């Protein structure tokens, strides 16, 4: 998988015209991916993008590598087949909140449970875009959409919470308007052995414009988000004066310098802790919203387990060719 040539983002740009709406965060995600891919040390021909259906799922057409725009919700299962057929490939799933959490919910939880070495980018805009504005499984209570004219009455999923419940080993979150951090997260997701899930808080300028402004806008971002880094204190704020401590069974925001709090009182982020309790709390946190790599716990992947078993069976088997099998056991002459 080591790359012999040094690529630039142009090597991963296809000749197809990009057809998303002007101002969509999808452009940021595409550009971040095209910048990240040359940094991953993988060969262009070994990169495979699989998508489902929805705005996000047009993504593979725009990347010059192998790709498949498949059917609604099934990308994780297709990608699993690709990876199991050829574990040397770098396999990516591109999906949205409707694609992965509604119609494809079953595949989503099972791919995380199995821990196949795939990278999933979940474009979460809390709305159905391509079908023109119906509520999605991440739309908020009360949200007015085409199918909830009086306000949405279905409580939303938190993708991260669902993922951790499904035993996700790698979960990261990033705002759709922060390309530099996003690029780095994509590189980190590729390097992680196992299923990596990156949730992008993606603005839909047409059907759900501004849904994340209160979190991702440049003016408030530093105060409303905590960008987590492994082994570093949980500190945030424009002045880097806010932080998180554990009080009882809850995370609490404190201010450094007030009530005798110093930086040494803050929690240290441990993304590699296998107990998911604190990661689940961080995922659920509404203020500040946690971004960056929240959880990254490596263990054996599904294909590593399968490969080890296959080698063991092969070593102990008396069958080299199917003819050996056909002539084994109870046979008789006529």
């Amino acid at each position: 998988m080591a790359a012999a040539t040094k690529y630039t983002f142009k090597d991963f740009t296809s000749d197809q015209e990009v057809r998303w709406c002007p101002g969509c965060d999808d452009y940021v995600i595409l550009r971040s991916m095209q910048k990240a891919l040359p940094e991953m040390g993988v060969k262009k021909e070994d990169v495979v993008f699989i998508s489902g259906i929805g705005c996000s799922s047009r993504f593979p057409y725009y990347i010059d590598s192998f790709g498949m725009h498949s059917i609604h919700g099934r990308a994780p299962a297709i990608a699993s087949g690709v990876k199991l057929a050829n574990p040397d490939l770098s396999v990516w799933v591109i999906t949205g909140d409707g694609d992965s959490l509604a119609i494809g919910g079953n595949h989503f939880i099972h791919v995380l449970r199995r821990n196949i070495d795939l990278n999933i980018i979940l474009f979460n805009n809390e709305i159905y875009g391509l079908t023109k504005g119906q509520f999605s499984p991440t739309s908020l209570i009360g949200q007015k959409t085409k199918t909830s004219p009086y306000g949405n009455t279905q409580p939303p999923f938190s993708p991260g919470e669902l993922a951790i419940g499904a035993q996700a080993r790698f979960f990261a979150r990033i705002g759709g308007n922060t390309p530099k951090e996003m690029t780095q997260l994509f590189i980190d997701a590729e390097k992680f052995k196992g299923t990596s899930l990156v949730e992008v808080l993606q603005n839909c300028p047409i059907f759900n414009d501004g849904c994340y402004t209160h979190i991702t806008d440049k003016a408030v971002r530093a105060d409303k988000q905590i960008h987590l880094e492994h082994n570093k204190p949980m500190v945030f704020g424009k002045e880097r004066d806010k932080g998180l401590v554990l009080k009882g069974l809850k995370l609490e925001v404190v201010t450094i310098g007030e009530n005798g709090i110093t930086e040494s009182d803050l929690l240290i982020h441990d993304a590699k802790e296998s107990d998911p309790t604190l990661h689940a709390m961080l995922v659920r946190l509404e203020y500040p919203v946690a971004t960056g790599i929240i959880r990254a716990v490596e263990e054996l992947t599904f294909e590593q387990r399968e490969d080890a078993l296959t080698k063991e069976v092969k070593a102990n088997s008396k069958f080299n060719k199917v003819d050996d099998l056909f002539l084994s056991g109870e046979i008789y002459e006529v």
Partner: protein
Amino acid sequence: MITTEKNIKPEVLEAVVIRFVGDSGDGMQLTGTQFSDTSAMFGNDIATFPNYPAEIRAPQGSLYGVSGFQVHIGSIEISTPGEDLDLLVCMNPAALKTNLSALKAGHTVIIDTDSFTKKNLEKALYASNPLEDGSLNNYRVIEVAMTSLTKGALKELEGLDNKSITRSKNMFALGMVYWMYDRDMNHTLDFFNKKFKNKPLIAEANSKVLKTGFYFAETLELIPNSYSISPSKMAKGTYRIINGNQATAWGFLAAAEKSGLELFLGSYPITPASDILHELVKHKHFGVKAFQAEDEIAGITSAIGASFAGDLAITTTSGPGLALKGEAVGLAMILELPLVIVNVQRGGPSTGLPTKTEQSDLLQALYGRNGESPLIVIAASTPADCFDWAYEAARLTLEHMTPVLLLTDGYIANGSEPWKIKSINDMPPISHRQISDRNPENWNVYDRDTDTLARDWAIPGTAGFEHRVGGLEKDKTTGNVSYVPENHEYMTHIRAEKVDRVQNSIPDLKSDFNEEGDLLVVGWGGTFGSLHSATKKLTEEGLKVGHAHFNYINPFPKNTEALFSKFKKIIVCELNNGQLASILRAKFVNIEFSQYNKMQGLPFGASELTQKFKTLIK
């Protein structure tokens, strides 16, 4: 009690039909399998028909909990599990009630009298005890207190619990039948030693009961009404007993080895297809990747992913599962990737009759998808030839780059027969269309072979051939998304023509027994054996009847209409409500087709067929 056996003179027949019936926990499937395997090894031709309820352990003694295993053995060619019984072995009243009508008058029924308790008779809805009320007067009844005799045989074996003792009474019955038909017990005794390697006590108990039953029959000099003693005149060679699901799995193993590709199975458990998955998970030594997915859709879509990445990919299911896979089948079809979808048909619609057979998924196989999405559709016709048709399905999909749907059914999937073992060296070659050494400069994703119209298979990892495909309509050359009206029409035609051109590489349809005449019997898939025997019988009676059986259904063989026109009448026989017949009528408008249909979850019997055929020949 038992009548004196010594005066009965057995009739020598070329074939006999035996059915073992009991409660679903009585071990009838095992008993039947042991008897048929032993007979096959003796050199008989055999055909078997396991018939069991969907419930794993239905309430004991109930009518719907009856499980049966029928075997037809002979010194002649056997092509069905037979119809009228020469011997019925009944383990309880419910089994007697539901099966007696199949026994030929005057023939033998062996009954475990211990099970004929008041409670069991009530459960079987008997108003009076059939052993006492004269209702069995037309049969030769052998009453044996099998449960007590089994207990007696095992009373000196220490450490056995009551349940294990009672459960081995099926071996008492088997022992009796072995003696009656002069079979050797060694195969079954070896089987016990292997199966219960770690439970020597259970092995000993079963062996003891088997022998006790055998000697019991010897002491009484039990003689069957009829017997078949001589080995059949089958082609010389090395054989093994195989059922349809195992043969299907092995056909794919052979195709993978021959094509040099790794085999990927994406599947989800479903009756009666699960045994293919059970078989293929064993074969990691051949590098088989058998992936039990989270649902039917993930079963097929994981296979599509594996195919995209270069494996020989298959998915296996039954009717309801195929319905769930429909959208993904369409994806594989528009992507023009190789994929085999196996549908082991069962009774439908909906959950239907999961453990019973039917051929009612033909229209679903042909048309069960949105849009214009033709597939190559083929069907296997006997348990052993599932091997050849699985192999052929793999060959077709790899050479033509379009999905193949292989139809089998519960009857041939679970039924078994002798298979003359094939070697990989004797199998036809399989080529695939993966490219690596070509110059990518002048290459387009949807360039086609001029003969077959198959596109190339450029798999991830092949430098210079990076490309995108998808479920959206694509440009006829580049594969990029295209909404051009003429392009969509062109692509619709070319995908259909690609399937039609398979006609050029498949053999003609033939008619067995007569190449022209008064009546052509037409069938497809798993009804081969029944239609073959019925036609054979009428031919022996001097009637001009032929039998044409479809294995290739889409496309049909080229000569189909020409063959049809050589017969005065045609009857299309199917275990459905006339699905093939309706297709034939649409396709061959100048030909008249009669129908014979059955939808009882059961195969055709030869006599219902011959009776019907005779009414058409005046």
